[in-house]
């Protein structure tokens, strides 16, 4: 079973994403900010990371940059999932090493479409 780390400071968003992704047969891990996500990744890299942008302690973009510099950190497929829905943010995320980008609000159809595009479904 593939693993997916959901990183979002909103408990509600994590819950909604978890329901969709469990249904798609992912093993779920959760973190509420970038630092928590990094700690999890350094112990063992997940297959996919669903990543919010604006979070306290360490935001999604800073997490992504650190992840890609770490040992084995090039492996996980990273899908941003954020309310930042303008072209400047999208470009910045992709050039920092994100594989796909979801603009909130999302639903099951969007998660499925994006995950199948990056080849994890």
């Amino acid at each position, binding site marked *: 079973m593939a693993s997916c780390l959901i990183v979002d400071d909103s408990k509600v968003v994590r819950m909604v994403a978890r329901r969709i992704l469990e249904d798609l047969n992912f093993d779920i891990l959760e973190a509420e900010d970038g630092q928590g996500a990094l700690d999890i990744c350094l112990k063992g890299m997940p297959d996919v990371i669903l990543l919010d942008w604006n979070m306290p302690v360490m935001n999604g973009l800073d997490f992504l940059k650190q992840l890609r510099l770490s040992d084995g950190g090039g492996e996980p497929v990273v899908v941003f999932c954020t309310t930042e829905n303008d*072209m400047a943010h*999208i*470009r910045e995320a*992709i050039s920092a090493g994100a594989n*796909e980008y979801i603009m909130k609000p999302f639903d099951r159809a*969007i998660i499925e*479409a*994006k995950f*199948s*595009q990056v080849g994890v479904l």
Partner: protein
Amino acid sequence: MNSQDFQLLSTLVRERSGLVLTEDKVYLLESRLVPLARRRGLNTLEDLAGELRRTNDEKLKEDITEAMTTNETFFFRDNKPFDIFKENILPHLLKARAGQKTIRIWNAACSTGQEPYSLAMLLKEESAKLTGWRVEIMATDISNEVLEKAKAGLYSQFEVQRGLPIQLLIKYFQQMGEMWQIDSSIRAMVKFEKLNLLDNLSRVGGFDVIFCRNVLIYFDNPTKAKVLNQMRNILAKDGALFLGGAETVLGICDDLKPISGLKGVYTPAENGILAAS
């Protein structure tokens, strides 16, 4: 609604679009036509049927037909047909049409334009191989409303997230407030036209590739046969017809053959496209 009203509306829609509505689809009539009735100041489908009987209004008939057609579509729907087009059909045509350097593609029942624009973006990505070539994409639909939207190339945030890879959004779209608009360079590659598939199709000319996906499922067998036979007549001998995942020509149009190994793709000559490649 009573069965006379159902008959009136379903016969109208069937004659005009080929769409078959059985009695179990009453809910579909209600969900699609009640909003239309309200816009005309009518409350119920009975009132709408009454209005139709009384006025025999051409515009009303057209609006009812348009409202009943299904317009669900998204970018690169099902992915696989687009991979097949890129990896099998396009390389074949680049060889077989090297003399005239022209490829004509028809997108039948294009709805709001995501499918022809997916093909246009795909061709743009392959443009290095197409220098000096003329590639025409004609996209048609029965509904004026969806064609207007298709021509504008304006999509909601939800629509650009269904099937469109983020790299292509970055490359070929501009943000317009809440909406996203596909580049004029891509829009210019597609010619949109109103066309009813039940009409005589010979006027649209000959094609190398036809995309007609998830359209025939709404028709009965005689209508399917009529449309497929017409398509066969305007498709090049080594051309390719793409149908939807749940559709087939088997038992309906024997002059079109499946191409082995390419699911959902049909050609007029047996193994035409493979024999030539």
